[in-house]
């Protein structure tokens, strides 16, 4: 199947600052794709190029196989939901939503029905005559979405649409957006710097930094198998540690050998290891317990007691943050971030274990440039 | 093509705005009294301007009145803002309403109203009545520049200063005033400019023989303009350019520093 949107070797600079460099991406029909990255990573520029608000310096944009690189935004069957809603302040809600339909010369009856339908879709039925400034931020956001989808675009571009909303409202809107996408069957291209939004809503997440794609995949892939330290660090809290890959399925972390499941990194190679805080298993050890050397040695093959790697340390910080406690544990010369529903007070001596499946091995970037290296799609 | 049309439009407007001024500047260097025929370069009109007691006195009057009116209006206006800021909302809006009257009213009405009042109360028109009148129409500008700064004032800073042991006066001087300074400066500059630029109010309230640059031009325009005024307008234009250029440069630099 041919992709709905295809970005081919796009480069773009603003005043000598290269924002995008040879960027390529394909978006399939009906996909909810999220461009995720810190500010300045080029994600908004991509959205604006797709919307037609910026022309790429190099490269082409295809829509249903046709080159639309030079097509102005008012000719594209693509609509945008802007970051700060960009509702027309001098029109009421009905007029705002009807704006695009009026331009395409639809009949009054059609427009009236469509506006009504769009308002119903965003749960704001009967708001036609209201003024923009009488609405809350969340309501304005819904109107902005209604104004875009009423034109039945093939693609909806959303530029951090939830950025200005508070947490509770944001979560409600996330579900709303998923529902809308499923009901309307349009392709969403969503831009955000909020990893939680990206993971909750998307079919596919594109993690970006410095104008390059760092990793692309399903939310699960991105979260569980980050391909490099940037992705790991950007997606959720992580422990990213220097380690040595002793051989296939054996990694040495803080001078302690841990079994893992990764292969093919070679022997005695320096690698980065990612361990999620919730994957750290904490066990309380007696005050006077002195770990014996054997406790930290991994016995190959016998498959019993010491199948896990193990480090010993002390809890140095402990904060209750809702569902669980977030702790810092000094162990093996590294400060580990750990989460647990059980409270281990500061000063508690603990052992920490990680099961092999939760140890994610990544190649170490050699230089800064390589860190921003484009990963093959 | 579109760009060309836009550029041409801007060019036409610039031409319209500057050609008349430019014409005056060119003929200020003309060797004769003619205002249409170029008879050779000369600086005679500048020399004549500098030695014409009428012009020199008019320049002197214009600037002394503007400085005095600016200073008085700024002091009275800033003090008033302090007072108004602790008043009730109702008295504030009442005072601000009256404050807006001279601002919105036609100059000619302000002028004749002040002139009649002076004469009714037995005050002879003089240099002083011009000054008093200028303060009257400058005050609203000062209030409008300073008052918004009062609204933005972080009152906690003042309270923090008191909390740290400052006397109210010291706290005002060291904490509040610096925050108000931009408003006060722009208020003074606005008052100064309005005063320099005024003709109508001065026309009605000046005493016999008192001339400012504006009234001098007006009376000469009736009997016949001499090129000394072209020289004067060239000097004024260059001065405006320098003053605005410098103040732009300063504000740009202070923004950069921030």
């Amino acid at each position: 199947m041919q992709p709905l949107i295809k970005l081919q070797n796009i480069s773009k600079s603003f005043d000598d600052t290269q924002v995008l460099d040879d960027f390529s991406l394909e978006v399939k029909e009906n996909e909810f794709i999220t461009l995720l990255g810190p500010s300045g990573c080029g994600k908004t520029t991509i959205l604006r190029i797709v919307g037609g608000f910026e022309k790429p310096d190099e490269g082409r944009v295809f829509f249903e196989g046709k080159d639309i690189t030079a097509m102005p935004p008012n000719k594209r069957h693509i609509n945008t939901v802007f970051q700060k809603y960009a509702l027309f302040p001098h029109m009421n809600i009905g007029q705002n939503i009807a704006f695009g339909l009026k331009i395409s010369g639809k009949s009054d009856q059609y427009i009236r029905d469509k506006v009504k339908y769009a308002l119903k879709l965003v749960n704001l039925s009967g708001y036609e005559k209201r003024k923009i400034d009488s609405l809350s931020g969340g309501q304005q956001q819904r109107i902005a979405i209604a104004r875009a989808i009423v034109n039945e675009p093939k693609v909806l571009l959303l530029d951090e649409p939830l950025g200005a909303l508070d947490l509770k409202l944001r979560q409600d809107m996330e579900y709303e957006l998923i529902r809308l996408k499923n009901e309307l069957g349009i392709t969403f291209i969503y831009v955000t710097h909020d990893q939680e939004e990206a993971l909750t809503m998307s079919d596919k997440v594109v993690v970006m930094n410095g104008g390059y794609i760092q990793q692309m995949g399903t939310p699960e892939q991105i979260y569980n198998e980050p391909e490099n330290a940037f992705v790991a660090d950007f997606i959720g809290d992580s422990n990213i540690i220097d380690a040595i890959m002793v051989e296939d399925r054996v990694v040495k972390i803080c001078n302690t050998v841990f079994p893992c499941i990764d292969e093919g990194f070679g022997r005695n190679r320096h690698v980065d290891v990612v361990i999620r805080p919730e994957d750290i298993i904490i066990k309380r050890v007696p005050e006077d317990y002195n770990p014996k050397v054997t406790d930290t040695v991994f016995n190959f093959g016998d498959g019993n007691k010491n199948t896990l790697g193990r480090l010993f340390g002390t809890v140095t910080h402990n904060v209750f943050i809702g569902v669980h406690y977030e702790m810092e544990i000094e162990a093996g010369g590294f400060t580990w971030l750990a989460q647990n529903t059980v409270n281990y007070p500061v000063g508690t001596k603990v052992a920490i274990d990680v099961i092999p499946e939760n140890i994610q091995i990544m190649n170490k970037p050699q230089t800064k440039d390589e860190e921003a290296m484009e990963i093959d799609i | 093509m579109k760009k060309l049309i836009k550029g041409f439009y801007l060019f036409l407007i610039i031409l319209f705005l500057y050609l008349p001024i430019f014409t005056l500047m060119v003929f200020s260097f003309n060797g004769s009294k003619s205002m249409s025929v170029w008879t050779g370069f000369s600086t005679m009109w500048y020399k004549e301007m500098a030695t014409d007691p009428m012009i020199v006195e008019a320049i002197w009057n214009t600037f002394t009145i503007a400085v005095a009116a600016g200073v008085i209006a700024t002091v009275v206006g800033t003090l008033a803002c302090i007072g108004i800021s602790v008043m009730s909302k109702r008295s504030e809006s009442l005072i601000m309403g009256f404050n807006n009257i001279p601002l919105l009213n036609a100059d000619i009405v302000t002028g004749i109203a002040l002139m009649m009042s002076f004469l009714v109360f037995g005050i002879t028109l003089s240099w002083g009545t011009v000054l008093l009148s200028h303060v009257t129409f400058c005050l609203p500008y000062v209030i409008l520049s300073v008052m918004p700064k009062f609204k933005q004032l972080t009152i906690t800073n003042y309270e923090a200063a008191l909390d740290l042991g400052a006397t109210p006066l010291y706290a005002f001087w060291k904490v509040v005033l610096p925050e108000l300074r931009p408003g006060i400066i722009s208020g003074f500059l606005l008052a100064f400019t309005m005063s320099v630029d005024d003709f109508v109010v001065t026309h009605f309230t000046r005493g016999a023989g008192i001339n400012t640059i504006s009234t001098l031009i007006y009376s000469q325009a009736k009997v016949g303009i001499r090129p000394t005024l072209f020289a004067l307008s060239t000097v004024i234009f260059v001065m405006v350019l320098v003053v605005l250029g410098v103040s732009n440069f300063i504000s740009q630099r202070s923004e950069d520093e921030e």
Partner: protein
Amino acid sequence: MTFRKLLAAPFIFWIIAGTVIPLGVIGFYGFTTRDRNFTFENITAIFTAEHAQALLLALLLAAISTLICFVLAFPLSLILRSSGLGQKGFMVFIFILPMWMNFLLRTMAWQVILEKGGLINAIITSMGFEPLELINTSGAIVLGMVYDFLPFMVLPIYNTLMKIDDNIIEAAYDLGATHKRVIWNILLPLSIPGIASGVTMVFVPALTTFVISNMLGGGKINLIGNIIEQEFTTSANWNLGSGLSLIMMIFIVGSMMLLSKLDKEGEGNFI
């Protein structure tokens, strides 16, 4: 607290002495005869042919000048906004710089150019044509008004245009609007506060001027401002002058109330 309020005393005194009392004096003279008897004559005097004509002509010329200023200033502001020249303060500076030049000097410049022996006629006659009657016409007065007050129209319109969020314009394009449509349906309605304030700042001084009409009309064309001025200088009839001023003020207040409705938030405010 009360001490701080006292700081406003000099200002309040000044308002009373410089604004309230003088307006009262105008009111007093406007409604009395020279012998201090109450009368409406000074007010109804507006209906005499000479006065009515002066008022109507002033209204007409002021309206024409305001319209011309708007027609010139709106595209200018649009160009400044769209070309990005607006961001560079320098371009805007060029268009409002003349505002800081003495207004009498600016008017005088046109007097010099339009005069019988002035620059334009010198050029015309040198090409072998008959000299034109340029000065002392209504056209010359309108030209002077437009020239003097154009920056006052440009600045507020430009300010409101620059305040419009780029996203709003992009949203309109995004929804399929053409360039023309964006101007008519988005930019024009959104700059109404600026237009209203620009119109006030051009219309009121144009309506009440006596300087421009005197310098460029050669004393032959009388506007209401000229009539009033003459009552205080040459004719010395304060009562009639005050009465006519009151009439003129009705028009000022009326036009302001009309326009302030369009600029509720004071967005287009100049200061």
